[in-house]
């Protein structure tokens, strides 16, 4: 089995043992979606979809469910990736110093992020579809996947300078709230301000709203998500490459004279 396959297999096995993340996935996501859909007003609200400039009307419960789902999946994948990156920080260094190919470990990390994001986003989207029929369910799934990837990469970045698991979890929760609350057209009057375009969840929320309430395949907001993902992934991988530098590998020979 190749170095990449061994590393990916073990990284996924280790991630699957994260009990807190499993509880959050199984219980927290359905709970959030159910609460948002059943306890929020179904009264319709007019709002302008910033990505297209068009005015839409949608139920407060549906808008809140979308925003709540993005909130839940972002903190879950962010925490999963933070936890994995923090746990393996010193071990990766030892493995690479012993000769493990760094590209294989990087490939395993990207695979873990992708698998976790696909699973969590598919699960959350499926729960939303139980309560509601968006006009473009596939695009909704893509939007949820995008925020999972962005927050997963953010979790890997946070592990560079936050030591404790609780510190990481709290930071990710606060970031997700600060990110999504001002963008929710029901809860915030600032949802249409230009500044919201800078937020990491902008691409996903705009695309989710477009997927839910229009027939336009609006994917341009996802460019914002792609930029956030690239910036954070580059930071995390550059830090990994820097930290796993070794001045001598166990297989090099240099005989003293």
């Amino acid at each position, binding site marked *: 089995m190749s170095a990449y396959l*061994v590393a990916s297999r073990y990284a996924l096995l280790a991630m699957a043992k994260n009990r807190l993340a499993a509880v959050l996935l199984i219980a927290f996501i359905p709970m959030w979606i159910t609460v948002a859909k059943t306890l929020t007003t179904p009264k319709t609200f007019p709002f302008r979809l910033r990505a297209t400039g068009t005015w839409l009307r949608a139920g407060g419960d549906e808008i809140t469910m979308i925003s709540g789902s993005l909130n839940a999946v972002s903190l879950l994948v962010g925490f999963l990736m933070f936890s994995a990156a923090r746990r393996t920080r010193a071990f990766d260094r030892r493995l690479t110093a012993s000769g493990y190919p760094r590209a294989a470990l990087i490939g395993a990390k990207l695979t873990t992020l992708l698998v976790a994001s696909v699973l969590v986003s598919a699960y959350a989207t499926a729960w939303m579809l139980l309560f509601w029929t968006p006009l473009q369910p596939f695009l909704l799934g893509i939007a949820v996947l995008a925020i999972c990837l962005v927050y997963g990469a953010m979790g890997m970045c946070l592990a560079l300078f936050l030591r404790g698991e609780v510190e990481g979890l709290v930071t990710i929760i606060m970031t997700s709230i600060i990110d999504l609350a001002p963008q929710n057209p029901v809860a915030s009057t600032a949802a249409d301000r230009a500044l919201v375009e800078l937020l990491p969840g902008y691409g996903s929320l705009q695309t989710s709203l477009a997927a839910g309430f229009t027939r336009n395949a609006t994917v341009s907001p996802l460019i914002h998500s792609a930029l956030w993902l690239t910036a954070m992934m580059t930071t995390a991988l550059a830090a990994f490459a820097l930290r796993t530098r070794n*001045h001598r590998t166990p297989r090099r*020979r240099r005989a003293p004279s």
Partner: protein
Amino acid sequence: MVLRVTAVRKAFGSRQVLRGVGFEARAGQLVGIVGENGAGKTTLLRVLSGDLRPDDGRVELAGTWGYCPQHPVLDEELTVRQHLRLFQVAYRLPDLGRALRLIDALSATGYLDTPAKVLSGGTLQKLNLVLALMHDPEVVLLDEPYQGFDWETYLRFWDLAQELKGRGRTVIIVSHLAHDTGRLDVLHHLRDGLLDPSPPADPA
């Protein structure tokens, strides 16, 4: 000479930890480096393993090496066998024969499928040590290698060290304790960032 360390200096900020350390080691030698807590022993071993770059000086090391860090550096979620498998890939070993023999010699075979997070401190240290020895390196760098070992395992460790020496391997052992120095061929004291060579004590 398989290891030659010349005038190695290393500082962390304004604190000069190593101030020109130099020593040599030949094939088949057991070399001890002792010093008080904070004397710079771990820093020296990290420089020798390539984990840290010295500010000045040279480390010349011939052949393969294995490094056992002071605190077990493992992935708590993985089992002992999974650790061995990862390091088999890292060292490009065709099989796990030697690793499993070492695990057996240290009486840890019963823990092969146990995740690291539930292992005792002593068993973690056994795995930590095996990961440094499983590719049969020519130079072995061990930082407090027997901490947490029970008496039986401690004795087996020294049997293992003698076996390595007998096969021409060089073993560098760093410790804050200067007991059992009779088992060593050379003993150095690290004081104030410099090494004082001293003859080994008589075997007890």
